[in-house]
């Protein structure tokens, strides 16, 4: 091969890459927080039979799960743009991720909820607990453990998918990489370093999540 690696340019630009990495984390954390909040409502609405809410929830969940993330992002950016609704690249990516996260997490929550055996309700009732107490002390704590792992996966997915920000000119890690490499034409070097940065970020998140789960959950289910 006749390719000489030039690494010094990448190290010079490291602060800008790290700035991009920060934006990546930022947008994915926010997309999870908002996604979880909406997912709770979607899950409740889907399990509930009140018509209009049920339809909205089912529609949301199915569209989110059955179309590409890239499509959602384009839609949020140029699709909404056709209606004169102008989101910044950051907002477009954020809203697409929130939309998708909410759809997937709603199904996770519903599954977690339905996986708690009836026996747990009966046992709680037989001890004289009210419905509220049953949920508060018995059902929700168990449900949270079951959805914890899928939730971390969704978080990692959000980090990886935020890389699509590159396609609407968002300056997260991938976008910054794209910009920096075109200034120097050092494509390979920049993308290698970026791949490593993504790996570190996702591993870091997973390790934190598993440490946290050890602290939170003592008994097994």
């Amino acid at each position, binding site marked *: 091969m*006749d*390719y000489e690696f*030039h690494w010094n*340019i990448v190290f010079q630009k490291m602060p800008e890459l790290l700035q991009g990495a920060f934006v990546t984390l930022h947008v994915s954390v926010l997309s999870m927080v908002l996604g979880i909040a909406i997912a709770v409502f979607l899950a409740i609405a889907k399990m509930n039979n009140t018509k209009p809410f049920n339809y909205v929830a089912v529609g949301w969940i199915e569209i989110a799960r059955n179309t590409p993330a890239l499509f959602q992002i384009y839609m949020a950016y*140029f699709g909404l*743009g*056709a209606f*004169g609704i*102008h989101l*910044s*690249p950051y907002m477009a990516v954020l809203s697409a991720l929130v939309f998708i996260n909410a759809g997937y997490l709603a199904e996770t929550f519903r599954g977690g909820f339905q996986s708690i055996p009836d026996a747990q309700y009966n046992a709680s009732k037989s001890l004289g607990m009210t419905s509220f107490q049953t949920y508060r002390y018995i059902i929700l704590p168990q449900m949270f453990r079951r959805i914890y792992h899928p939730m971390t996966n969704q978080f990692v997915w959000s980090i990886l998918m935020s890389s699509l920000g*590159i*396609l*609407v*000119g*968002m*300056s997260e890690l991938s*976008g910054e990489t*794209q*910009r920096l*490499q*075109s*200034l*120097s*034409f*050092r*494509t*390979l070097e920049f993308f290698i370093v970026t791949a490593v940065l993504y790996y570190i970020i996702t591993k870091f998140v997973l390790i934190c999540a598993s440490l946290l789960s050890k602290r939170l959950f003592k008994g097994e289910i």
Partner: protein
Amino acid sequence: TAQADQLDEVIKRGTLNCGVVLDFPPMGYFDKDNKPAGFDVDYCNDLAAALGVKSNVLNLTWGDRIPSLVSGKTDVVIGSTSDTLERAKSVGFTYPYFVFKFQTISKKGTPINSFADLKNVKVGAALGTTYETEYLAYAEKMGWGKDNYTAFKSENDAYLGLYQGKVDAIISTNTNIATKLQTKEFADYVAGPYVPNYDDVVGLIAKRSEVAWINYLNLFLIHQIRDGNMNKHYNKHFGSDAPADLIQSLRDNK
């Protein structure tokens, strides 16, 4: 015998693999039959004709330009590549074949009289282009910050963003703006001030080590002007004769 260089190879192969960015009208774009067209595409065909080989136009993204050369997928990239010294560490440039000026375009009535007025409006440009760099450098010097700036993945997306009203003005090349202004979609728009003190001088690029090949390409560029091909294509794609100062600066290899 001496090792065959790129020039020999192209002639022997009988095909010129010529990379063009087809996302940058009128230099490169898809016509209504979704076929490649544009000033750069015409240059590819002229070069192939001069070599006496078939022309094979490859559609590149901005990011593909270097890897395609290094890997030998393309022999030359005619892709409006700004000849910065930083990039010249990675790739071999010919003499300039075109000079762009950077300019704003905005809807009529947007209060932009000088470049300094951009401070008050939302500005956009294509990600990773030289004019993006120029604008950002200028904005930083003036202390504007990045808040009113939006990057787009491509030149096309930048125009779409302007058209939809995502931004009030975008920075683009004077040539591109001139062609856009002739379409009915952009009839309501006007070209604005130039980026101060900056000409975007672009060259063809080839493998850095292929000196003889670059030599040949340089001579080709001179002949394009001398034989009038340059002016002919300019006319076809820009609707007027090439300006004298552009011709002159290319002759001077500035």
